[in-house]
Every structure is written in structure tokens, then in C-alpha cells.
């Protein structure tokens, strides 16, 4: 499961560098991006253009985190969903959301596990 979510060596090296504080910050940022994405897509039902623009920003930030921790699949999902936001394809973005949020959750679990293992 880990291998499919991210590159464990890359993640470990990164978290080792920044310690507990960095783990906590990654977890906080993942949660914040998930909340922003959910809020944006909620807004998109009333104002599609503004909602998709907000979603694109949240996805871009999430993709930056995913790239940094080596979460390849999450990077790919976010990039695809960002492209759909640009195209105004709300249905596809809503479909991608499920996978994105689930992968974020799995990544959060991995980071928390590292934090507990090393504390």
C-alpha cells in the first residue's frame, strides 16, 4: 500500500530532516488543502467559475506537497484534476475528488505513523 501512495525512502528522508514539527505541518497542510478543495467544490455548485478556480488553487498546493513527499499517484490525480478545472469540466473534478481525498488520508496516516515511530 505504502509503495503505491509514495516513495517511502523519500518521505522518511524528508521527515527525518524536519522532525516532528515538519510531520505535523505536513499533516496540517494536507488537512487544510482537503478542506479547501471540499469547500471549493461546494461553492462550484452555485458559482462554477469561482468554485473551480478555488479548487484549482487547492489542487495546485496539494500537488506541490505531493511532489515534495514523492506521492506519485496523488501528484498525478491533482495534475489531472487541475487540468479539468482549467477546462471547466466540473463533473470530472468531482469524480477525481474521491480518489484525491482518499489518497490524502492514506498519506496522512503514513506521516503520522512515521511521527509516532520516531517520537
Amino acid at each position, binding site marked *: 500500500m505504502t509503495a503505491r501512495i509514495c516513495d517511502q525512502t523519500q518521505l522518511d528522508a524528508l521527515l527525518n530532516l524536519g522532525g516532528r514539527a515538519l510531520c505535523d505541518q505536513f499533516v496540517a497542510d494536507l488537512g487544510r488543502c482537503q478542506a479547501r478543495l471540499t469547500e471549493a467544490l461546494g461553492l462550484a455548485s452555485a458559482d462554477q467559475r469561482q468554485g473551480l478556480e478555488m479548487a484549482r488553487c487547492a489542487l495546485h498546493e496539494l500537488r506541490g506537497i505531493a511532489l*515534495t513527499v514523492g506521492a506519485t499517484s496523488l501528484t498525478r490525480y491533482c495534475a489531472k484534476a487541475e487540468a479539468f478545472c482549467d477546462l471547466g469540466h466540473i463533473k470530472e473534478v468531482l469524480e477525481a475528488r474521491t480518489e484525491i481525498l482518499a489518497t490524502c488520508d492514506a498519506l496522512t496516516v503514513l506521516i503520522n505513523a512515521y511521527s509516532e515511530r520516531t517520537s
Partner: protein
Amino acid sequence: MSADASSSAGQLLLVEDTPSLLMLYRTVLNRAGYSSISATNGTEALAKFEDHRPGVIMLDLMLPDMDGMAVMRQILAKQPSTRVIVITANGSIDKALEATRKGAHEFLVKPLGDQRLVAAVANALSEFRTQTGAAKALLHTPYDLPLADFLGNSDVMRHLTQKIKAVAKSMAPVFILGERGTGKKTIARMVHEQSQRATRPLVSINCSAHDSDDLEAALFGITPGTLGDRAENSGALKNADGGTLLLENPQDMTLELQARLVSALQAGSFIPAAGSAPVPIDIRLISCARAHPTEEMHAGRLSEDLYYRLFVIPLTMPPLSKRGDDIVQLATSFLARIARQEGKTFTIVSDDAANILLKHQWHGNIRELINVLRHAVVLHQGPNLTSEMLPEDMITHARTPKSNVHQDDALKGFEAAIKGLTMAEIEQRAVMAAIERHAGSIPQAARELDIAPSTIYRKRDVWTKSKD
């Protein structure tokens, strides 16, 4: 901690809106000995820039309140010597390339490797200090390219190299002209290193990187207590004594400061502060600028006195597009070095890639070539650089056949435009059109038309008088 890192306080600004990434970058840089200040949005970044005037900025292009590109534009307008390292996610490379065209020092693609991040900051800080400091400056070719590789074998460069050898032995002031990114400072170093002053300092000062008070202090020095609590600084003129002073963009000095410099050069000495004894100086002057000094003098930005002091022997660095096969030689040398820095191996520029490189216009010159190669190395695997690894717009442009139909149409249009005109009128139109194509620059128009700028000035006077 390196000497470079030890004094980075206040000189490095990180702009990143994701707190975890910001924390990570700060951690990596702290471990390498670099302290930094940070901002999480564009407004905060601009405010911190005003407060600290950092020399290097790591800037995420996507910020919550404003476009990173706008932040960069405002910063570079206030302090052009700032080195902006743009951070981008894979997939936003086009935007990063656009940023480098608009003045970014370089771009880094997420995920940022520790070594790459530290190397980029070290390089940018060192360049910033070289450009702005009045300390002894060692100027290198980009990526420490061997000078022979940098110079290449094209006729235009062989001719220039011969000219450099000849002028280096003289004491005459040299003015190096050339577009942005052509390697003017490297040529200045060559002149210095081949001169009899090679064992003495080469001091570089960029007149556009300082406001007038700072520039005066950087040139003439500060005596403790004369300007707030700043430490003593001997100034570039004294530091260059016995050696060479490289003045970048002399037209950006105020006219008052130009007058003070001319006096010092005439007298062979200057008085650092009121009441102090004159300091003797023996310096050779090399200047460099993108703008032609004759044009700057006509526009009133460069005093006539300083113009005649500086513009004695002109050396013109050709744009990369005029250097023929040198482009491929340069690309091959840079490619290997960039690849080594990125932990990859690239050794060969394939024929199809070489064809595209040769057809490209290279408006950003060597700097643009480096950016294109870095783009390819970051995103692909070697050892061959193939055409597919080059930016799409370069490939499309190189492969678009030039239409004979358009050329025929253009010829017909030209014939129609000159029908019924005298030879003198055709000449006037051709000259005025060339001036317009070069945004009013007479020296550039003269180069295109292969005539002396003075010919244009003379003819223009005649045309103006005949109109009156």
C-alpha cells in the same frame, strides 16, 4: 559553513505559501548555513523586500493574493540586481521559462532536491555579491566553462578574440557592448587577465544596482561616522588601484556622480571625505552596457566628459544567434556541466536538436541557452539531447518552412512602396524604418544597415533641416 553562507542574514527571502514546504526549505538552507527571512504571500513578500532589500529571492509563482510574476516584476524594477529563483511544479515549466525570459535568475522544479536547492542559493548569492559588491570580484564564465569553449570558433568570435589580445596590452579604456546575456563580463575578465595588470585586482561595480548615495559610497568609499553607523569601506576606486575597474551601466550614475568620477580620473586622485587627504589612484577602466554610450550621451544620460573617458576602444559581443556553430559547441559544454549538477549524464547534442538550436533566435542569448538546456536535463534522461526535449515553441518555429509566397508578397509590397521615389527618398525611408525597428536606437540601426552611426546622425540632421 561556507564564507558565502556565513553572511547571508537578511539577503535571502523565501516566498512560499505552503507552510510545510516553507519549513522544509528553511530547514535545508539552515543546515547549509544560510539564514533566511520568509513570506507566505505576495504582499508580505513586497513588504519584506522593502524592509530588507535581500539579494536573492526564492519565489513560488503561484501565490494566494497575487501572481508571482507580478511580484518578481516589482522587485526587479526596484532592484535589478536581485537574483530571483523561481519555484514551480512540474507541468508549469512554460511559466517558469517565461519568468526567466522576464529576468528570473533561474528556476527550480518541485520536488527540490537538497543539494540542488543549496547550490542554486549559493550561486545566486555569489552572483549578487559579485555584481553589487565593491570588493574584489572574480568573474567566471557561466558554469566555469573553459574560456576556449566559451569563445568558440566562429569568425565573429575569432575576430573578437584577436581584438581582445591587442587591446589588453594597452592602457586604453575599453567599452564592451552587447545584448543581455552575451557574456560581456567574461570578456572584461579576459581583457584584465591578458593585461599587465592581471596580478592586480579586477573590481566590478554595477551602477544600476545602487541608488545614488550608495553608489557614491561604493565608488569613493565611506569614512566611519560619515554615513550613519556603517562600517568603513575603501570604495571601488581605491580597491582597484593598480588594477582594473569594471563599470557596468555607467549611464545609470547621476550626472553629479559622473562629474566627480571624471574629476578623479583626470586628477589621478580623489578626496574621500571633506578635509581628508587625496587618495592617489592608478586604474584601467573597462565599461560595459547594453545601451550604446553614444546614444546615452545624445539622450543626456551620459555626460560628454565621461563618454570620452570611457568610450575609447569598443568591443562588441555578438548575439548568440550570430555565432553559428558556436551555439552547438556551447550547448554541448553547458549540457555536460548542467547534467553533472543535476546528477545526470548528458554528453551529446543530437543532429536534430542541433538543427533546432541553430535556427532559434536566442533573444536571451547564453542565459536563454542555459535555461533551455536545464529544462531538458531536469525533465529527461541522457546521454543524448534530442529535439523532443526542447521547448515546443522552439521546435515549431524551427520546423515552419519559410513561405516563398510571403516573400513574393513582401517583394511586391516593397516595390509598390518605393514606386516613384527618388534614391535619396528611398534611403531616408530605409534608414528611418531601421531606427523604428530598433526602438529609436541609432547605433543598432547603423549596425543593421552596416553603416557608421555618425552617418545616420549626419543624414538625420540634413533631413531635419530640409524639413524646417
